[in-house]
């Protein structure tokens, strides 16, 4: 029986979709069988981030309404052998096209076939959130080190509790070590202290994410990307490995950091 994980945040644009794509790809790289569900009905994005937009025939709503079998609707990502699949969101419908109960049934049935089912949650706290969370066994909350994002994350943590989803864990995204050093950005400890939840991982702000999204290739596929490395670490933590949070130096890390990078040292 697989595990269903919802990736959520409250606020939009903090990196839920990027995180879903990269953790999914990271778990698939590690040999796990993974399905990604884009639960952002009406604003489908996971397909383009993954580079699979040209292969969509059926979507989540088609499956829930019985117009397509799950097996037929799932898009196989050929870069990951038989390990990674995407169930895209419907683009021309809205959140009310599916109910939390339907989502729960769908996710439950998928857990029989996959080691991990990752659900990319839409922004907001309304029905889209309730749908995305319904079938999940655990929640991962993504937040950036900014007041608005932390506030929304706090609200989401409260709502997860209300939905009986206990012990969510936190991914801090888009950390900029040089700003943290100057005291102009909250650091990991500040975030954990305020939100009072467990830390799952830290992802640096990385220009390569933009490049990877341009190309439709998850960053975990690139061994040079710091964000890619962070996401690979997160995937391994989800598999139960004990991997320390990577040390974030300044972007270029001075001459020392560059040297270490050249020597291929792990950050």
């Amino acid at each position: 029986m697989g595990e269903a994980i919802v990736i959520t945040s409250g606020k939009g644009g903090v990196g839920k979709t990027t995180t879903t794509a990269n953790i999914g790809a990271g778990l698939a790289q590690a040999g796990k069988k993974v399905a990604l569900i884009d639960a952002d009905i009406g604003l489908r994005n996971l397909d383009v981030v993954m580079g699979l937009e040209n292969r969509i025939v059926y979507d989540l709503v088609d499956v829930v309404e019985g117009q397509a079998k799950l097996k037929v609707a799932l898009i196989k990502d050929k870069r990951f052998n038989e390990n990674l699949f995407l169930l895209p969101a419907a683009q021309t419908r809205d959140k009310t096209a599916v109910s939390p109960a339907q989502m729960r049934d769908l996710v439950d049935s998928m857990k029989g076939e996959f080691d991990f089912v990752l659900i990319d949650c839409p922004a907001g706290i309304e029905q889209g959130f309730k749908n995305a969370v319904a079938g999940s066994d655990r929640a991962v909350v993504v937040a950036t080190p900014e007041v608005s994002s932390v506030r929304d994350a706090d609200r989401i943590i409260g709502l997860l509790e209300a939905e009986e989803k206990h012990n969510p864990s936190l991914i801090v995204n888009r950390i900029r070590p040089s700003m943290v050093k100057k005291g102009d950005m909250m650091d990991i400890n500040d975030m954990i202290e305020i939100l009072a939840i467990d830390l799952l991982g830290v992802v640096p702000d990385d220009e390569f994410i933009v490049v990877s999204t341009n190309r439709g290739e998850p960053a975990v596929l690139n061994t040079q990307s710091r964000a890619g490395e962070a996401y690979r670490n997160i995937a391994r933590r989800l598999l139960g490995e004990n991997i320390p949070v990577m040390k974030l130096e300044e972007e270029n890390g001075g001459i020392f950091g560059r040297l270490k990078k050249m020597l291929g040292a792990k950050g």
Partner: protein
Amino acid sequence: MFDLFARVFGREDASKEVAKERLRLVLFHDRASLSPQMLENLKNDLVKVISQYLDIDDEGFKVDFSRHDDSMAIVANIPIKKKAGRSL
């Protein structure tokens, strides 16, 4: 050198300190779903009740919410005034 100084002693004007302080207040209200007005009422009522028993310093009176894992707690810090000639 200044950088080191700032790191050791924590620059008070560092914008992240401002962010944290603002978040503390915002989350306080969010978590309790309590408006600032209701909070003020709560504080005043607390002062009234406790004053019946103790001489308290309502200047230093502080009410806070904190979250520990699954539960929320209301934490009140209520300084008691020293009575003349007696230590507490």
